[in-house]
């Protein structure tokens, strides 16, 4: 009578273990944005830009969710719109324009092109929330390139437009069962849809917004390395949800993805540390360098987390961190990189790292790593794994990865250009004016991050005139 197996408060398609995992994974990813990136970025900008950066982060998270409920989720993960003949690009590039408004659209079983092998074990609310936190983090990531001069109102428009035009299309194509997914390109948790795209948007956006004041660039002191540590720690562990959540079940592959994510990250952090210690001009280990390496590892393992084995994960971390270290220190001095003021270097740690990771899938994916399976004790239909060149001895997967990368880069660049152009027109320029830029937070928000009375205890009126002054 009291038995859990016979007293079930949820539908038969729902498994509470899987639902829990998915909701917790989503919560961890949400924490990566708030407070994670809010304080990581807040700690990396100059003191006078902290409030602005943090408020943009909180606002972007909120705006994305409203868009997501009203149309975003169904455009990216709802049934495809089939504007062209089946199998063609036009039949698989976008979902339907439809809100998540009714009870059944939240509580009914999730159905999406994101996984057609095995029915989801959780409701649409779970899938929608999980996919929302991924959508929300993407503009927050490329915000890093734009801080220190972007108009606040412009940001309030950029986020909903960019999510609708760029993110939803890329997500539908690669994750929603769209054209590239059908062709066989894969992206475990967003090396392309999120990080490469954020890197490209960062680059194009920074170009369109123009550079920060030269004084701010020359004196781009990070404000607070302890806050960077808080944000970085949350990012690392939060990534357990980011990559661990993407098989959509709390199975063996979720565990493997978590472990591999951490392994690649450790390798990425140490790799950058060693480059700094033994190759950089100063030959000193630096904290912010280590954090860069950590992010490279996290980003690069994202497209392959559950498809590579432990050795593959180490290789991904070492290679991506090395490539980005070189890009950061040398490529950044070449045109066009030297001409564009990507304030926090998003194009390197997310763009380069995401691209590296996405291509490495085509090389290192181990077909013995089973995401879902029928073999042996599995009871579900289907079987999913990916084979890279090293194991499959074929360049097929690499080629698919390459094509998808080209698409992501081009479409994101184009879409970002369009969105920023429209917003520039709507709000009259993308930059705050020069006087405002000199002052920062106080001019824009009439707040500062660490307010202090002038000194001591100023009083509005001399203290002896106060009636309750004893």
């Amino acid at each position, binding site marked *: 009578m009291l038995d859990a197996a016979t007293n079930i408060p949820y539908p038969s398609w729902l498994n509470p273990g899987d639902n829990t995992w998915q909701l917790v994974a989503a919560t961890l990813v949400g924490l990566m944005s708030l407070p994670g990136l809010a304080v990581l970025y807040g700690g990396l900008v100059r003191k006078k830009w902290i409030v602005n950066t943090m408020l943009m982060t909180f606002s972007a998270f909120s705006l994305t969710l409203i868009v997501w409920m009203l149309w975003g989720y169904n455009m990216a993960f709802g049934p495809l719109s089939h504007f062209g003949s089946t199998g063609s690009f036009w039949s698989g590039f976008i979902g339907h324009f439809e809100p998540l408004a009714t009870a059944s659209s939240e509580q009914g079983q999730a159905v999406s092109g994101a996984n057609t092998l095995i029915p989801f074990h959780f409701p649409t609310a779970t899938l929608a929330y999980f996919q929302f936190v991924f959508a929300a983090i993407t503009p927050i990531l490329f915000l890093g390139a734009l801080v220190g001069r972007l108009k606040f109102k412009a940001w309030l428009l950029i986020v909903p437009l960019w999510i609708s035009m760029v993110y939803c299309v890329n997500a539908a194509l690669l994750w929603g069962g769209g054209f590239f997914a059908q062709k066989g390109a894969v992206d475990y948790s967003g090396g392309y849809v999120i990080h490469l795209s954020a890197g490209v948007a960062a680059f194009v956006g920074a170009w369109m917004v123009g550079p920060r004041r030269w004084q701010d660039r020359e004196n781009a002191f990070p404000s607070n390395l302890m806050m960077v540590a808080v944000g970085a720690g949350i990012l690392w562990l939060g990534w357990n949800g980011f990559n661990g959540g993407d098989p959509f079940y709390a199975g063996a592959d979720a565990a493997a993805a978590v472990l591999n994510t951490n392994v690649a990250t450790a390798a990425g952090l140490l790799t950058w540390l060693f480059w700094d210690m033994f190759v950089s001009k100063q030959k000193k280990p630096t904290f912010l360098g280590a954090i860069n390496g950590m992010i490279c590892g996290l980003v690069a393992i994202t497209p392959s987390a559950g498809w590579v084995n432990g050795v593959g994960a180490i290789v991904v971390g070492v290679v991506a961190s090395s490539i980005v270290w070189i890009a950061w220190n040398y490529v950044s001095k070449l045109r066009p990189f030297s001409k564009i003021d990507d304030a926090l270097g998003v194009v390197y740690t997310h763009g380069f790292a995401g691209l590296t990771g996405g291509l490495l899938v085509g090389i290192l994916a181990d077909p013995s790593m089973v995401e879902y399976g029928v073999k042996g004790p599995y009871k579900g239909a289907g079987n999913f794994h990916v084979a890279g060149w090293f194991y499959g001895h074929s360049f097929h997967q690499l080629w698919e990865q390459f094509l998808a990368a080209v698409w992501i880069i081009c479409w994101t660049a184009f879409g970002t250009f369009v969105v920023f152009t429209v917003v520039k027109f709507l709000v009259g320029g993308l930059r705050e004016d020069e006087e405002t830029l000199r002052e920062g937070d106080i001019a824009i928000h009439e707040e500062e991050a660490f307010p202090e009375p*002038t*000194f*001591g*205890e*100023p*009083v509005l009126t*001399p*203290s002896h005139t106060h009636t309750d002054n004893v």
Partner: protein
Amino acid sequence: MKLVTAVVKPFKLDEVKEAVKVVGITGLTVSQVRGFGRTGGHIEVFRGKEYTFDFVDKLQIEIICTDEIVEDLLEAIVAAARTDTVGDGMAWVTDIEHVVRIRTNERGPQAL
């Protein structure tokens, strides 16, 4: 021209500011200092260990004024900054040879 410097309790700043305005002062410069005197310091304890803080927070106010109003100014400052408890601070006067207002390059009394 004289430079009047006063070291006062921090929470007295606004009162001093209002008081010196009355005697005709239109500008002043303040800095955060710490003083050592009769007051003695205080103790803080972190993780079971005592630390003695000998110095007390004060504000130092510097005001340039013409020779005539020095006396009034000193009195105004003393009246405003005084609490009659230990640690009220000091004020002193030094002579100034030139003053320049940077914006206008005016010298001497016009500079004020």
